[in-house]
């Protein structure tokens, strides 16, 4: 994963990558030549840490979008390997086809049974193409809800990993009812009697993301994004080409801190300095810890209460002016 990450260095990370490369060169030289360079190494490492801190404490929204898309960033399958034991993948939507862009299966997190549902972008080129780069077709959404219903039947909580640029926009996807399956998932997830915890781990691309994202708790990794439209799509609408995506990323208010301020997201999970792609293991541990904590909190509720709370959670999202209320407030 680390090799991949440095191979896909982001522009704004160039000074960090340069220092990292010098450190690794120096280290291998010191090892092969048996010359003690620990003093210089320590100094370089300190410098690198400072650089990371400086760059990563002032990220703009577009930089975060780029980090969210970084190929070295941990994916759904990395979290499964990282903390889900005894993972038993279950395939298929029972209707048309097994969509690899959604992965589903049973597993245990520190002994607790869970049903995992998540977007899968694929790692190898072959996988990426098969997964349409993590953009599901209708059968992917049907597969997800089929496994969620199964989990519900046996009282198993659901963990959803969100990481998609969006539901696939194509002829077949429309022929098989992309809009209809996403809508059905939203409705079905609102009805689930078991706890649901969703984590946005990378890209939260619009309808394709929320299609597996209706949950009791919505968590977001610090450098992930969640948006009604991609920055490129927004740029194309407003400025007729995609080159203004950085500006679009700003005005869409799609970062974890924006969405936490809007109270749309329940918790932002901090990433290591330098981003999740620089330290996948500690990111994975932080996500595990957050999932378990939220799962514990929502597991104590009575199933009907939990469902009602979920409904009210979504009912409370929205900002508008209520002219009658304003009048009342003015008088008070």
């Amino acid at each position, binding site marked *: 994963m680390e090799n991949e990450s440095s191979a896909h260095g982001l522009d704004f990370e160039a000074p960090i990558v340069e220092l990292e490369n010098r450190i690794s060169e120096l280290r291998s030289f010191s090892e092969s030549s048996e010359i003690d360079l620990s003093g210089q190494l320590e100094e370089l490492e300190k410098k690198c840490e400072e650089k990371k801190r400086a760059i990563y404490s002032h990220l703009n929204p577009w930089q975060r979008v780029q980090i969210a898309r970084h190929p070295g960033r941990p994916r759904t399958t990395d979290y499964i390997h990282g903390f889900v034991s005894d993972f038993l993948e279950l395939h298929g939507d029972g209707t048309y086809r097994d969509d690899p862009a959604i992965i589903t299966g049973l597993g245990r997190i520190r002994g607790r049974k869970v049903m995992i549902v998540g977007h899968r972008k694929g790692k190898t080129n072959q996988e990426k193409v098969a997964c349409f780069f993590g953009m599901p077709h209708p059968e992917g959404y049907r597969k997800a809800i089929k496994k969620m219903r199964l989990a519900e039947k046996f009282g198993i909580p659901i963990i959803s990993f969100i990481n998609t640029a969006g*539901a*696939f*926009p*194509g*002829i077949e*996807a*429309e*022929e*098989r*009812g*992309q*809009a*209809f399956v*996403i*809508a*059905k998932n*939203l*409705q*079905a*997830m*609102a*009805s689930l009697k078991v706890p649901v915890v969703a984590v946005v781990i990378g890209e939260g691309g*619009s*309808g394709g993301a*929320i*299609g597996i*994202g*209706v949950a009791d708790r919505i968590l977001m990794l610090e450098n992930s994004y*969640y*948006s*009604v*439209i991609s920055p490129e*799509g*927004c740029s*194309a*609408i*407003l*400025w007729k080409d995609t080159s203004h995506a950085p500006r679009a990323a700003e*005005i*869409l*208010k*799609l970062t974890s801190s924006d*969405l936490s301020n*809007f109270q*749309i997201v329940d918790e932002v999970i901090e990433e290591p300095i330098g981003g999740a792609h620089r330290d996948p293991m500690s990111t994975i541990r932080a996500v595990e810890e957050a999932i378990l904590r939220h799962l514990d909190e929502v597991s104590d509720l009575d199933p009907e209460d939990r469902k009602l709370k*979920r*409904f009210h959670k*979504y*009912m409370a*999202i*929205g*900002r*508008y*002016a*209520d*002219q*009658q*209320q304003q009048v009342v407030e003015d008088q008070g």
Partner: protein
Amino acid sequence: MSDEVREPRSSRRRDVPSGLWLRCPGCSKMIYKNLMVERGNVCPECSYHFPITSEERIQLLCDPDTFVEHLKELAPADPLGFIAKRSYRERLDETQSKTGLRDACVVGRAEIGQVPVVIGVSDSRFLMGSMGSVVGEKIARSIELAREESRPFIFVSGSGGGARMDEGMFSLMQMAKTAAAVQRLHEVGGLFVSILTNPTMGGAMASFAALGDVIIAEPKALIGFAGPNVIKQTIKTELPEGFQSSEFNLEHGFLDLVVDRQEMRGTLIRMLAYFCQEA
């Protein structure tokens, strides 16, 4: 999920020339305006359905003088402080004064064939009927009203905009909110009839609009998830004739009925009789 990109086309379509004749966007023929209006704003040559206002739609579907508007006081805010070339606030103000609407949908109690219902209608004149916080709130709360008062819920969708970009994630979350409200109505055995008009796309189509117990569309409406241009750019192929039309969706099994505008009220009355009356 776009509205701005479609606005010019829609305003062109809406600016019906004040003369006696006009060119139909469906068949490109010159048609006699009075005849078109007489047929519920439907082209007498090709039955292209011209967009109509929420007021006209309510008149067309409800028993005379039975509609009482609900939640009229809700008005849009600008939660993101959204400013691109023009600010959202500016576009809202302009659209509000042009249309006299506060936002893109109207909801209320009414009777259809003497059956008390809750009905909502989106209005495509207002930012392409797109769904932001107000539209989502009105839909969810009127579904709740239908549940509490045991009335059927009828919603006429028309949204090329889908989820309204200018309200960002607040708009996307309205999809989950409206779908959750439909589920609550469903659990008490309430009826939801979803009527789709040209166009119903994106976040509107991928939430409440797709969740009717019965889904009816007007002919030749554009219905789908991704906009045709987005699909074309993604797959780099031309789209087949009639792709994402009402008829296409009927053929693929997603609609119960395609019904002409002039027949819609009669169809609703027959349907309500089956679901809401004893005999």
